[in-house]
Every structure is written in C-alpha cells, then in structure tokens.
C-alpha cells in the first residue's frame, strides 16, 4: 500500500474524532444550562428593579392604610384610654405583626407587612427560583412640610437577601409612601364624644373666609389647615400642640351638643375638647357668639384668635357674658 493512502486514512480518522467531539451532547447541555442561568439572573434583576421601584411602595401604602384604619378602629373601641402616646412604635408593631402589644387585631390578620413579604417570598421562590429573605425592618410614620396637613408619611427600610443558584444580592431598600388622610375617620372626635359622634376628615375647599363661609364649613363638617391647630398625627396621640406644617381643625357641630357634650368653650374642635385655645390663657378664654350661626338651640362661640382666623367682623360678634 502506498504511504499517501495511509496518511489520508489517518487524516480522516482525526477529522472524524473532531466531529464526534464537537457535536457531542455535553457541550450543548452546557450551553443550554448557561443560557438558563443567564435567563434566571436576568429575571432576578428585573424582579429586584420592580421590587425596588414599584412593589414595595404598593405594599407599604396598602399595609399603611390598613394599619391606620385598624388603629383608629381600635382607638374608638378603647375609648378615653385609646390614645397612643407611643404612636410611632405602636404603628410600626401593628403594621409588622398585626398586634397592639400582645393583642392580635382581627382586621390586620393576613394583611400585615410580614405576611405580605412572606407571600412574596413564596411566589418568587416558585416562579423565579429566588430565595428571598428580609431582615431589620424599620418603619417610620410622620407628618412634616413634605407631607403637608392632608397626608401621613410612611418610610420603610429593610435589608433583602436574594439568592439564585448562580448569584446572590444583598440590598438595603428604602421605600416611602404618602397616605392621604382624606376620607379617614378622625378618632379624636369619637373618643372625646364617648363614641357618640364619628367624623371623617374632609378638607374644605373654602379659601376666603367670612361668616357665611364659616357657616358652610360648620354645616359640611369639613376640616381646614391652621398652623396653630394640632396635626392629624398629634390628634391620634391626643397631643394638643400647634403644628405649623400640618395642623387641622374642624367645628363642633350640633350632634356633639345633642350627645350631651356641652361646654362653655370655643367651638373649634381642639379648643372645645382640650379647653386650650391659641392666644388665650387656660381658664380665661373670652368668648363671642357669631350672628347667623349662633341660635337658641346651638350656642356657637369663638375666641378672639379664631374670630380673626375666620375673618369675622366685629359687627357680627357679641361677647358671651359668663
């Protein structure tokens, strides 16, 4: 046999071996596995982005509203002992665990932050193959210039650990949500009237005040921002202090008087219930009836600061003689 044929056969054998090597399944499998890992990391990245920019805010806002609702209902049930001086701590604990102290609050069951995060964990584990755990949650509730008088600010900070088979992330996320208080119940009214009067917080649209506007405000049971009134946050604590950013007040309406809560005091809610009025000395509050509002059955009165605030003229008032 010629040497050339021998070399040609060897060459074909080498090419054959190479074909078998490169077309073997393990390589395809490795490539497929790599693509799957890449896909999962990509989907995990998308999930983290959604979580950070959308989902946590949804959770914080919905759970915050539920907590606020449960808290005000609980305050009403507890009556005069229902104000929470440690409101921030109570709110955070209730939002996280559904408990006030060690008492389970039924309306929070299945709607706590912990439950919603655990639901999320179970879902992403099954759907995206991500092992998600959270730790060090910190909840802050507040009102300030940024929230204004008609919203509560709610901040959640927590650390998330996320693991997939090929990568892991640890991120500390901060989420802020504004809770609009319009339409919520003001427990301050209910508690101070021994559960007889409920009032919802509805901001007034009146901007220019006079006695007619005040009558409209009184009849509609609306609220107005006043920097010398307590904020909604302080009302939940029965802390009657002026709040420049967020003070709100409403008027005592006939249903309060009909409930037997009768006082010789200015008919601005925080003044009436606390007997402390801006610009007046405690126990020495000058009071004035207002024409067109005060009647025989409804002895509406205001003290000097609020007469000025609501732009009532001197011709429309008459001093109350004690």
């Amino acid at each position, binding site marked *: 046999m*010629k*040497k*050339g*044929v*021998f*070399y*040609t056969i*060897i*060459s*074909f054998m*080498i*090419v054959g071996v*190479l*074909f078998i090597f*490169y077309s073997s399944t393990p*390589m395809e499998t490795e*490539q*497929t596995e*790599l*693509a799957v890992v890449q*896909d999962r990391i990509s*989907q995990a990245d*998308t*999930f983290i982005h*959604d979580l950070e920019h959308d*989902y946590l805010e*949804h*959770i914080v*806002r*919905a759970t915050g*509203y*539920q907590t606020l*609702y449960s808290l005000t209902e609980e305050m009403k049930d507890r009556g005069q002992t229902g104000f929470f001086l440690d409101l921030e701590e109570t709110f955070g604990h209730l939002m996280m665990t559904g408990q006030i102290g060690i008492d389970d609050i039924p309306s929070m069951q299945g*709607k706590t932050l912990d439950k*919603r995060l655990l*639901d*999320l964990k179970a*879902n*992403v584990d*099954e*759907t*995206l193959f991500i092992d998600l755990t959270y730790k060090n949650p910190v909840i802050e509730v507040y009102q300030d210039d940024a929230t204004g008088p008609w919203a509560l600010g709610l901040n959640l900070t927590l650390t998330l650990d996320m693991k997939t088979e090929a990568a892991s992330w640890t991120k500390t996320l901060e989420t802020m949500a504004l809770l609009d208080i319009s339409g919520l119940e003001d427990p301050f009214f209910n508690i101070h009237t021994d559960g007889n009067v409920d009032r919802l917080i509805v901001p007034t649209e009146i901007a220019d005040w006079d006695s007619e506007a005040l009558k409209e405000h009184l009849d509609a049971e609306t609220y107005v921002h006043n920097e010398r009134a307590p904020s909604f946050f302080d009302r939940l604590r029965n802390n009657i202090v002026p709040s420049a950013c967020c003070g709100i007040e409403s008027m005592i309406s006939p249903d309060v008087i009909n409930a037997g809560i009768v006082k010789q005091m200015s008919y601005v809610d925080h003044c009436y219930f606390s007997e402390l009025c801006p610009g007046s000395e405690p126990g020495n509050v000058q009071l004035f009836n207002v024409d067109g509002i005060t009647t025989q059955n409804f002895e509406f009165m205001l003290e000097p600061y609020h007469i000025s605030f609501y732009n009532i003229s001197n011709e429309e008032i008459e001093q109350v003689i004690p």
Partner: protein
Amino acid sequence: MSKGYFYTVDALMAITVLIIGLYFVFFTTSGSPSLQVSKNMAEDVMGTASSTKIFQLNDQAYPILRALKQAGLVPDARSTLLQEAGMLYTIGNVDEATLLFEQTIDPTVPEQYNYAIIINDDVLFERSSITQTNADSLVTSRRVLYGSIDKRDMWGPLPAEVRVWQ
C-alpha cells in the same frame, strides 16, 4: 515532492478549515438562531405587557379599555396591561383579561409565532398553529404580578408567564 507529503498537507489544511468552522459554529453563537429569536419574542411580549400603562393607550383604539373604564374596572390608570389583567383575573373577570390581551398585545406579535400569556397557571390568551407538545423549542419569560384593589387591599402576588414556541 512525493504524493505522501501532498496528501498530508492537504489533510492538515482540511482539518484547519474544519476547526475554524467548528469554532465559529459553537463559540460565536449562544444557541440556535430560532431559539434566540423565540426568547427575544417572549421577552418583548412580557416587556410590552408589563411596561405599557393603561393611561398611555388611546381608548378609541381599544374598545375593551373603554368598556373596562365605563364598568369601573380600571381602579388605577397607572397600572400596566399585565397588572390590569392580573386584577381582572383576581376578581373573576377572565374574559375581559383575555380581550385586553387580544386587542392590545396580540396585534404587536408577528403571525409566525405561537405564544400564550399565562397568569397563575391559567392560560388567559393563546395563539398557536401547533401545540406546545409538538414544538421543537419552547421558551418562557416570567414575572411576579401584584397590584392594589383599593387603598387597603392588594391582590397577588401571582406568577405571570409568556411562552413562545416553534
């Protein structure tokens, strides 16, 4: 030059060409082209459904959106199409969710693709000429869905999936 050397050089050249060819085939692509295209399509459909917000769409062009708004079934116009469908699914309005995908997503997907949009393991919309079991390739894109029903209540989380097969 003897014939032996000629054959040897020829064989070595052939091997070199084959090695270069195999290198390009196996190391310069991440998979078969059809699989990659399907994967891109699944991501595109999922991306469109999960990023297009209701308020970005013109009611006049999509009768289902007009009907949903009239029926009070769009609680938040900032919701994405996928979130709106998830909400409809949660409250039992599956037919409306199907119509929503049919009118908004389906016209954007080229006809040669077989695909399905699935929420919580239920197929809400499917367009296919072959079954998934007879397909040569099948790829998925997944998300976790959630949203608000009102101020205090949320729906979800629910798994959402787009499957594309050929």
